[in-house]
């Protein structure tokens, strides 16, 4: 004799509260445990996040696509971290180019300073790049061109951390460096792209000199909104000659202390 789900799962009587939050509330229970459906849903989120970290990105395919879209020359770089296992254990190695990439950057250098280098790195989520890079560039590039900014060659970095952009900035002599990088995946956001903008990015620059735009993905901050925000930061940073804390956005809470809801 079989029993139905309704008889096995003790439902929580406050499921209407789910509309207020993305948190996993009112899951119901079987004994003390989460019901099977909730268990597997969690596991699915974790699997997507794990795959985002570990499934390698097809950089050649991405290079072709970026080249076609932007008509920029695209440099394919690799950090000093040989593989994912080393990348995860040694953040210092992911923050600098390997020998061949450093040589490639030196050859690409020009005498004149560029306004902006765009650097895309896999970071902790390959899915973030495959799903967000092209749509974002599609919106961003025309804005950059309209602003009359001089672009350095586009850099695609495998096993890269944010600070690898400082080596690019130094080698290509850029005023601004924007690193577009896969963020640490969350359980329900395995494909978030982050952008770190640094004025005069050179090795050794502190994290307080970076401005970050986070959670860029279709379900989070839209590509359009992210591009607009980045263009605002680029404009302000070039105008004032700073980035990071000195450029920080103003408050989002009013003087009465009321919360955003």
């Amino acid at each position, binding site marked *: 004799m079989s029993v139905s789900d309704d008889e096995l799962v003790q439902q929580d009587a406050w499921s209407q509260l789910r509309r207020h*939050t993305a948190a996993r*509330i009112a899951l119901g229970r079987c004994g003390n445990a989460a019901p099977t459906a909730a268990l597997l849903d969690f596991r699915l989120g974790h699997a997507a996040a794990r795959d985002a970290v570990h499934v390698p990105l097809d950089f050649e395919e991405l290079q072709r696509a970026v080249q076609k879209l932007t008509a920029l020359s695209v440099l394919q770089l690799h950090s000093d971290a040989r593989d994912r296992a080393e990348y995860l254990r040694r953040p210092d190695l992911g923050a600098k180019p390997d020998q061949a990439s450093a040589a490639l950057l030196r050859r690409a250098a020009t005498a004149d300073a560029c306004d902006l280098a765009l650097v895309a790195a896999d970071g902790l989520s390959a899915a973030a790049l495959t799903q967000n890079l092209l749509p974002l560039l599609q919106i961003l590039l025309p804005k950059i061109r309209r602003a009359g900014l001089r672009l350095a060659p586009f850099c695609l970095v495998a096993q890269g951390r944010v600070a690898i952009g400082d080596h690019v900035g130094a080698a290509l002599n850029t005023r601004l460096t924007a690193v577009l990088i896969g963020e640490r995946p969350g359980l329900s956001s395995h494909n978030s792209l982050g952008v770190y903008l640094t004025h005069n990015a050179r090795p050794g620059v502190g994290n307080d000199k970076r401005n970050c735009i986070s959670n860029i993905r279709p379900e989070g901050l839209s590509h359009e909104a992210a591009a607009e925000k980045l263009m605002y930061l680029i404009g302000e940073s070039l105008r004032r000659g700073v980035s990071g804390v000195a450029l920080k956005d103003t408050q989002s809470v009013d003087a009465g202390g009321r919360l955003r809801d």
Partner: protein
Amino acid sequence: MAYKRSIGVHTYIFDTLADLLARATPLRSGDVLAGVAARSELERVAAQMVLADLPLREIIATDLIPAEIDEVTRLIGETHDAAAFRRIPATTVGDFRNWLLLDTTTGAILRDIARGITPEMAAAVSKIMRNQDLIAVAAKIRNVTAFRTTIGQAGRLAVRLQPNDPVDSPRGIAAQIVDGLCYGCGDAVIGINPAGDNPAQVAALLHMLDEIRRQYDIPTQSCVLTHVTTTIEAIERGVPVDLVFQSIGGSQAVNDSFGVNISLLREAHDAAGQLRRGTVGDNCMYFETGQGSALSADAHHGLDQQTIEVRAYGLARAFSPLLVNTVVGFIGPEYLYDGKQITRAGLEDHFCGKLLGLPMGVDVCYTNHAEADQDDMDNLLTLLGVAGCNFVMGVAGADDVMLNYQSTSFHDAMYLRSVLGLRPAPEFERWLIDMGLFNGDLRPMDGPRRAEKLLGMKSL
């Protein structure tokens, strides 16, 4: 003075006590990253053998970070109770382990001599102990603290209800609080990590938590985990502050990186203490720590990450905190690579904190780029329950949607209490029954009207 040990034809040499402690530490990625880990398994055991023969007095006499440049070192020296130390009938680290494990070395004795144990002594002995030893000794020690609930008694397990929201939405937070309370969580603290450090927003959250607590007369304490200076400012402005939160580390330099020092912590402690908001006790500090924070701030002075972590506990105990929480798997795989390393670190932190007399809780957690999953968390959670951990985290569905990591869930807390026969804090237990949320056997009451009262929460 260098330390030496020959094994076969090879002689292992350890230049300093810091070097010896680091090489004796069970493998973890953070020590490899720092370049202080043993270079082979044999070297690790050689270091442990040297360490086992090392007199405890030599550890006390050696400053791992010079006192002239480090106020944590000075505090550890000044607060060491030499009389309590003399009551420990062991001269070496190896004998210390043996003595800790004796049946006759009871929890009461360990509590009495706690102030005679320095952080470095605790770290040293933990390095030669097995996981089983760390559990067995910790299980003997009960460090009880109180504010509106009494936390840490034998047979009880408290839970921090952690209702974080990515934009600090009051409704989003309140919805998670209802969920957590219905699952019997929140007796350690209802504590929010705010999305921003903005004082007005922090004040609004503190008012909201206080209102919820008063609306239902919940015997618990609230906390917004913001920087200590923001909390001091809130106290000055008359905002209802129960607990002062701060992240701390085991060197002056790492605390500098957190923007705190001993005098600032003292100021905060005194300010909160003067409010006298506790009803059954006056422990008003909530500290968080975690292995790896010193290295990530480049403030580790060549120490291994576990030793410097225990020094943070030496700092914490100067403030008689209500809660000390080691956030063990949050920092990432470059410090603790996988489930095995996270498990070991969690047990070490819990044991060392308990030994020093602290009310230890553990955020049993992991990030998605670590080699760990729910099974590893189940294991560590269960081990900590057996070890007599004071409190763990409760996060809806184990998924913190603000901090983007996985901790333990409200369900996990019920599981642990159920399989080990652990009960909530006594004041909170009565409230759960009076509210009709749980029956006298501490099983959740069933039925559609169970949460009816809580659904009238003003913030919803």
